[in-house]
C-alpha cells in the first residue's frame, strides 16, 4: 500500500507505544488527501491506544502552515462555528452573539472553500470577497478555479499584493501586512495567542484589515466606529469564554497565553485532554474510529502511470507571493523530481525539459533526477507558478469531512516535449 515495509511500521509503532513521552506531529502530507480526516483519526486512534495524550510531552500536534490557521478557526472564520468554537446551530450560543451584535445570524452551517467553488459552478454563488488568499494559484485543478472566478458577477480581493487572484477582481482593496504593518494577535499550533505589532507604516493607500472592514460597513450603513485591534479583541474576550482571561496586558507579560484561559487569574492551559487520566473518568470517554483504507481518487493507469505529490521547500512559502522577493541561496528552479529508475526507463536525462500531463491539464518543466525517490513517485512544489503552474495538474476531489483537496496524489505521465510544442 505505502511501499514502506510492514515490519518497519510495526517496529516504529512499538517504539512509539513504549516511549515515556511521545508526540505525533504532522502537516499536509496527512491532510491533503480525500481521506485526510481518516488519516488524522488513525493517528488519534494510535495516540489513544498508547496513552500518549493529555500528559506533558505527549499529544497530537498538527503543525500549522501559517501563523494564524489556528486563530482563524478560533475566531469563527469557518463555516460552522462561532468565535470560541461554539456551533452556529446551537440556539443558546447563537442567541448570545445575536444579542451582543444586535443582529440575527444564520442558523445553519455555511459552505467551506471547496463547497463555495462548487456553488460557483452551479451558479448559486455569484459574488465573492477574498481576503489574503490566492486561490487562482493555490487551488487544485486551478484552470477550473480560474474559470469560476472569471465567471463571477462580482469579485472583491483584499490583499497585500496584486496577486493572480486579484487580477480577476472587480475591486481590489490594498491591505497592510498583518504581521508588521498593523497590531493584532495570532494563535500558533500550540493554541498560544501572541501579540503582533506594527513596526512600519503600510505603503501607499494600504489599510489594516480592521479599518477596511469597518469603513466598508460604514458605507453599507453600519457604523461600527473606528475600533483599535485591542478593542476588537476585548469584544471577542467578552463572547468567547476560552479567551476571556487574555487581556493585551497579560499577553504582553506572559509572552502569550494558551487557551482555554477563562479568567484573568488563569495561567492558560499547557495541556488538553488531561481529564482522560482522571479516575473515575470525567465526562465522555474519547471514541476510537474505524477507518478503511481507500486509494487516491486519481488512479494510476497505463495512460497516467506515475504518482505526483506536492511538497514545500525550506526557503519558500506557498505560492511564493511573500518569498519571491528575497535572494535565497537555496533557491532552485522548479522541476519535476523523478527517481533514477523511472528516468532511465523513460529515456530521460537530468535537466531534460518534459511535458507533464494529468487528467486535468499539462505543463512543461525540467526534469530533475532525485535518488531519494522510490520508483513511481515524483514531486513538484507550488512555489513558482510562473515557472511551472503545478496546480493545473492537481486533483480538486476533496475530503467530504474536511473539504481539503487531494493535492498529494495526482496521477501523471511524462512525455518528451515535441519540436512543434517547443516552437509553440
Amino acid at each position: 500500500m505505502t511501499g514502506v515495509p510492514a515490519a518497519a511500521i510495526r517496529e516504529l509503532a512499538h517504539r512509539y507505544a513504549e516511549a515515556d513521552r511521545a508526540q505525533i506531529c504532522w502537516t499536509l502530507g496527512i491532510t491533503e488527501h480525500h481521506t485526510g480526516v481518516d488519516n488524522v483519526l488513525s493517528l488519534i486512534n494510535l495516540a489513544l491506544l498508547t496513552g500518549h495524550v493529555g500528559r506533558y510531552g505527549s499529544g497530537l500536534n498538527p503543525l500549522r502552515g501559517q501563523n494564524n490557521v489556528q486563530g482563524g478557526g478560533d475566531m469563527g472564520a469557518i463555516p460552522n462555528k462561532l468565535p470560541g468554537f461554539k456551533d452556529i446551530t446551537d440556539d443558546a450560543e447563537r442567541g448570545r452573539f445575536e444579542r451582543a451584535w444586535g443582529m440575527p445570524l444564520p442558523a445553519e452551517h455555511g459552505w467551506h472553500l471547496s463547497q463555495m467553488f462548487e456553488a460557483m459552478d452551479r451558479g448559486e454563488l455569484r459574488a465573492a470577497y477574498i481576503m489574503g488568499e490566492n486561490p487562482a494559484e493555490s487551488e487544485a485543478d486551478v484552470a477550473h478555479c480560474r474559470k469560476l472566478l472569471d465567471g463571477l458577477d462580482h469579485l472583491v480581493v483584499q490583499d497585500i499584493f496584486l496577486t493572480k487572484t486579484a487580477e480577476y477582481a472587480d475591486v481590489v482593496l490594498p491591505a497592510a501586512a498583518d504581521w508588521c504593518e498593523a497590531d493584532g494577535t495570532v494563535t500558533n499550533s500550540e493554541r498560544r495567542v501572541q501579540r503582533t505589532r506594527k513596526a512600519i507604516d503600510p505603503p501607499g493607500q494600504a489599510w489594516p484589515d480592521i479599518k477596511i472592514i469597518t469603513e466598508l460597513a460604514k458605507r453599507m450603513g453600519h457604523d461600527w466606529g473606528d475600533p483599535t485591534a485591542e478593542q476588537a479583541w476585548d469584544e471577542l474576550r467578552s463572547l468567547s469564554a476560552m479567551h476571556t482571561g487574555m487581556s493585551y496586558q497579560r499577553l504582553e507579560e506572559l509572552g502569550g497565553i494558551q487557551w482555554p484561559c477563562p479568567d484573568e487569574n488563569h495561567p492558560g492551559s499547557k495541556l488538553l485532554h488531561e481529564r482522560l487520566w482522571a479516575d473515575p473518568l470525567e465526562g465522555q470517554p474519547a471514541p476510537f474510529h474505524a477507518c478503511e483504507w481507500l486509494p487516491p481518487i486519481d488512479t494510476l493507469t497505463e495512460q497516467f502511470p506515475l504518482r505526483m505529490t506536492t511538497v514545500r521547500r525550506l526557503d519558500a512559502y506557498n505560492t511564493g507571493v511573500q518569498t519571491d522577493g528575497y535572494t535565497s541561496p537555496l533557491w532552485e528552479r522548479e522541476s519535476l523530481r523523478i527517481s533514477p529508475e523511472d528516468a532511465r526507463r523513460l529515456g530521460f536525462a537530468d535537466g531534460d525539459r518534459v511535458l507533464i500531463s494529468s487528467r486535468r491539464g499539462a505543463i512543461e518543466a525540467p526534469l530533475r533526477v532525485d535518488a531519494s525517490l522510490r520508483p513511481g513517485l515524483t514531486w513538484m512544489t507550488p512555489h513558482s507558478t510562473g515557472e511551472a503552474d503545478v496546480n493545473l495538474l492537481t486533483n480538486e476531489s476533496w475530503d467530504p469531512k474536511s473539504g481539503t483537496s487531494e493535492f498529494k496524489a495526482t496521477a501523471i505521465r511524462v512525455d518528451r516535449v515535441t519540436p512543434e510544442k517547443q516552437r509553440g
Partner: protein
Amino acid sequence: MRRNAPVMLGAIRRMLDFELDGEPVRAPEGSTILDVCREQGIDTPTLCYLDNLTPVNACRVCMVEVDGSRVLVPSCSRDVEAGMVVKTDTERVRHSRKMVLELLASSTDMSLAEDAVHRWMDSYGVDIKRYGPPGPPAAAGERDRRQAGHHHVPDGLTAETVAQPVKIDNELYVRDYARCILCYKCVEACGEDAQNTFAIAVAGRGFDATIATEFDVTLPDSACVYCGNCIAVCPTGALMPKSEYDMRQAGTWDETKQDQVTTVCTFCGVGCNLELTTQDNRIVRVDSPIDHSITNGHLCIKGRFGYAHVQN
C-alpha cells in the same frame, strides 16, 4: 517507574551555602558561579557564554578564583558547591581577564563588539598599544591556507592580527573573519544547541585556527541552510546580515534612527517571535528574543531573511 506516571517538570533542588567575595550566599544546587554572580549584581565579563547555548569554556574571560583550586575556574560552567569560597575581584582574576581581552583586542577588530565588551575592556585597563602597531592584513584566503598550529616566529615589533578581507559569497550574510574571536558560539548554534546542521566547525588549532565550512567551501556549497542563528549569537559582528553590512559600508546604518518592535513571524504556525529593527520605515535587521520560550532566539531562513515583501 509506574507507567504513565506524571512527569516532573522541574527537579526539587537543595539550597547550598557558600561564600562569594567574602559574603555568605545561598543558591539552588545546579546553579553556576556565573548565575550567582549575575543574581548578586557582580558584573562578570563573558564572550563565549550565552543563555541559549551550552557553555564551551572557550574564551576564558569569566574566570574566577576558587579556594583550593590550583588554576582559575570558568564561572560559566562551574557549578557552585556547599562551602565553596569564590573570589571574583582579586588581582589574579583582574590580570587574567585583562590579558584575555587585550590579546583578543590586539589581534581582532573588536569595534563592533557589544557595548558590554567595551565596558569590560575599559574597566580592566586593556591597552593594546603595548603590543605594537598591528601587522599587515592577510590577503584573501591566505589565512585559510596556513597550517594551523605551525606558528611562525613573530617579528617582535608588530601585533599579530587576523585581519583579512571580508568573505562575501551569498546575498544573505557575510563572514568578516577579521572580527572573529573564535568564541565557538556560531558553531554551537549551527550544531546541537539550535540548528543541528553542523555546517561549520573550528578548523585547526592555535592562532591560525578558523571557523570553516567542510573543506572550506563557500557557504552556498556547504551544508548551510541560512537560518542565520550564527549571526544572532555572534558577539563581535564577524557574522552579519549582508543587508546590514552593505548599509554600514554605505554609511547609512544609523542606530540613532532605529527602533525595535517585537512581533510574530508570518511564515508558519510555530509562532517564533521576531524582533524587527527598523530604520526610515524599513526593516533593516531581524532577530528573535533570546528569552522567549518558543524558540529561545532561534529562527529559520524565512523568518530571518524573508521580509523583502514588506520593504517600502
